[in-house]
Structure formats: C-alpha cells, structure tokens
C-alpha cells in the first residue's frame, strides 16, 4: 500500500493506482475529459491537473496519469490548479464550442468568457475513440494520423475500414460529437456506422433538427 495525503487528508491506496483514483476514493472531485474507466489513461486533455509537492518545488501534473507515490502531497483545488483548469476549459471552448460536454464543464467551473480565436473543430484529439475502438471493441479501426496542426483522427488512408464493427462506440464516447449523428454529412463521419445501419430515423421530417439526441436511441441503440 502507498500512503499519500490529498488536501491534507491521509489515504493509502494500492500500488499502481493513480493520483486521480486516490482522490476519487476520498471523494475529492477532479474534472476529467479524456479519462474513462476501462480505458488506459492517456493524459491528453490536462483537465485533471493537480498540484504536487510543496513550496517552490510544487508543480502541476495530470492526475489521471500520475502514479501515487509514497509521501506525496497533493492539492486538488489550490488557486494555481483552479486557474490552470479554467484556462484549459477556455481553450477547449475556443476549439470546440458546440460540444455539450465542454459547455457543461465551462458552466460548472464558472468559465463565462472565451478570449481566444473561435474555432469550430469537431475533434479535440482526446483519443477516447481510438482507445475505445482498440481496447474495448478490439477493432483498431481508427487511429491518430499526422502530427502538429495536421493531426487528425480517422481510418488509415481515409478509406472505409474493413475491421470496423459499426458498433458506434467511438461516437458514443466522443465528447465533441457525442451522439450527434454525422450521417447527414458523410464526409465528416468518423466511421460512417450510421450510414451502414440505414437508420429509420432519417426518414422522419425533423431529422435535420434532431441531431440525434435521443437517449436511448430507438433505432441504433447507441446508449
């Protein structure tokens, strides 16, 4: 067992646990975005920042990837952490304002303004879909491509994947397009699962406005 203190409270967790898990065990809320139980931690969004160490040596780390260490002192809501977290949410809003998940995060953390150039990306490169596809669906149909500003998610060679199971797992987990059907814009679809399911809902008149927020979906049973 490993002993550490979080916000002054002592906790012991099993070896191999992350700081995030330790904090969750104690009930300290840490917002996460690219983290998902059942998928390997990836550390892409940095939303789960916490402060470790003391004095001038204190630094910010992503709690979802930081392993619990003996004697570690963690603060989950110090001024510095809150400032960093708000900044991250603001940046996420700048890239993907249409995401319900990000809007909710902004509202919950009191982020009311957004000072950066507004973009409308349909992906924040959190990698959830990639991990979902390979770790839970055992398909490995989609992955990261390219790097830097060119980085994107999709199938190899941009052709329809022959290993995709059309499970919809990637869309289900995506914080940017969550349950938003992309079938009316096939070129934007990640796996085109919907297109292949020939869903009955597209016959309905209000289809264009529905944006597939049906929960659960009667047709495709996503969620």
């Amino acid at each position, binding site marked *: 067992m490993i002993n550490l203190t979080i916000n002054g409270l002592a906790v012991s967790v099993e070896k191999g646990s992350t700081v995030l898990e330790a904090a969750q065990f104690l009930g300290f809320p840490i917002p996460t975005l690219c983290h998902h139980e059942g998928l390997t931690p990836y550390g892409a969004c940095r939303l789960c920042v916490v402060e470790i160490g003391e004095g001038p040596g204190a630094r910010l780390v992503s709690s979802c990837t930081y392993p619990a260490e003996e004697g570690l002192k963690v603060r989950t809501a110090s001024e510095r952490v809150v400032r960093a977290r708000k900044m991250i949410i603001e940046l996420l809003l700048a890239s993907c304002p249409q995401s319900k998940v990000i809007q909710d995060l902004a509202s919950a953390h009191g982020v009311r303004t957004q000072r950066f150039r507004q973009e409308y990306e349909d992906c924040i490169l959190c990698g959830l879909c990639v991990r979902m596809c390979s770790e839970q669906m055992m398909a490995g149909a989609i992955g*990261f*491509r390219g790097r830097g500003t060119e980085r994107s998610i999709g199938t190899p*060679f941009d052709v329809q994947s022959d290993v995709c199971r059309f499970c919809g797992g990637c869309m289900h987990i995506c914080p940017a397009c969550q349950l938003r059907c992309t079938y009316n814009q096939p070129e934007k679809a990640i796996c085109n699962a919907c297109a292949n399911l020939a869903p009955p809902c597209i016959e309905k008149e209000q289809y264009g406005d529905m944006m597939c927020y049906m929960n659960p979906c009667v047709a495709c049973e996503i969620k």
Partner: protein
Amino acid sequence: MDTKDILDIIERNGKNHAGLIAILEEVQEECSYLPEEILRLVAKETGRSLADIYGVATFYKAFSLKPKGRHCVSACLGTACHVRGAQKIVEEFSQELGIKPGETTPDNEITLETVNCLGACALGPIVVSDGHYFANVTARKVGEILRDTREGTFGSDGAPEEHPFLIEVSCPRCGRSLMDSGTSLHGHPSILVTASMNGKTGWSRIPSLYGRFARTHEHAFPDNTIIQLSCPHCASSFQDGSRCVECGAPLATMRLADGNGVFRICTRTGCEGHLLDLGRAEL
C-alpha cells in the same frame, strides 16, 4: 520488392514495438516510399492494427506515403535560411514546378521538399538537389537549379560538383590571408601554405573549392605520409591536435577569413579528410 523481402525485413527487425520504425525505414529505403499494400502486410505480420502503423507512418516526416520523383530538390527553411528569404525561394520552386512542397510533379520527375537546417547556415539560403549543394540561392537561380536537376548537369563544366562552396582562409595565428589569386586551381584562387617533411620545405597549394583535394606541392611527397603544414607568413604550424575522422592523422586548421568558422584538412598525403566547422570563431 516482393512479399518475401518484406517478410525478411520484418523477421530481421522483430515484431515488437521497437522494430516498427526500423521496418518502415527499410521499406522506405527500398521503395522510396511506403506503399499501401506493404503497410497492410506489415500490419498483418506484426499483429498490430493498420491504424497504428498508419499513425506512425504519418507522424514522422522521414516517411512518405506517396511515391517520390526521380529527382529530389530540398530547400532549407531553417531559421538562418528563412531570414535570408528561403520562403521566397520555396515559392519560386513551387511556381516553376506547379506543385506544393512535399509533392511530386505529375511526370514523376521532381519531388520538392523543405527541410529544417542542413547545417550550412552561414551559406544560406541552401538548396540541395540530388545531393548537390547550392549556396546563397536567390529566386533567379531557381530555373537554373531545376535545369541542372533535370539534366543532371551540376557545375558549368557539366561535371557533377559536390560542394560548390568557395572558401577563403587566413592564418589562425597571425591572421594574414592565405589566398593566392596569382595561381588558380579549378578556376578559383588557391590556398597557399608551407609544407615540410623530413627537413624538405616548400610551398603547397590547396583548392579553395570546398570538397576538392587536388593539391600541388613544390616537392613531390610520397603517398601516405604526414606532412607539416604551416603559415607562409608567420611560420606557425597549423596542426592543432585535432584528428582526421577518416584516418586519425593530425588535421591542419585554418580560420575562415570572415571569422565565422574553421577549415580543416588532413595532413596525410592521399587522404581526403577535410571539414568545415562553421560558427567556430575561436580555435
């Protein structure tokens, strides 16, 4: 390249994580790019998903998924070349060829690439065409470089010219110029130094065209012997303890006249070891 070659490459490098880049490198070397069928085969053989392999292949700039042309022109866009207007040169190439950097002309002749620093910043903007270096390139020279590239004629005499850099050197001790415009080698002023061996002392001339080695000496020195090179003005020796990377013999070191680096040549007759160390003012 057939399936068996690929299987060999995979076998050699192992199927684990670390082997993947080595496998892709070898395929790229053989085929000049990474063909889709081969990536699919690599995926199948290594048991990794094609998405993973595609991710690695598109992450590194060294890998190309498109076939390359017969010739390759790389323009340096490193910081030093950039501030000297390399962007303009790249645009000029793009316009002349009708392609963007990273693309290949439709006739599959020329691939245009940009690179970040070729290590010869003082001579920038630099363009390398099929391994031939062009220094201080201006937009006006672009047409000429492309013609040379297509016809394979580098240098005015039609012979491929490896390093068309003219250097000007001076003595590191007394600072006086070693250039002798009276006698030219390869059509350029020669570098005049004093050479001695076993008490025999005389002049020796070195071409100022970086990469040429045809030296002339007053006395005929036997091949494969080490000679002492010194300044004809102050007689101080140029040997400063550095060693030739090719043969281990002492190197003679001279200073570039613009104070921007040093020029070293091997003191063993017959050895072509030499190097240009730019940005090293102090010896």
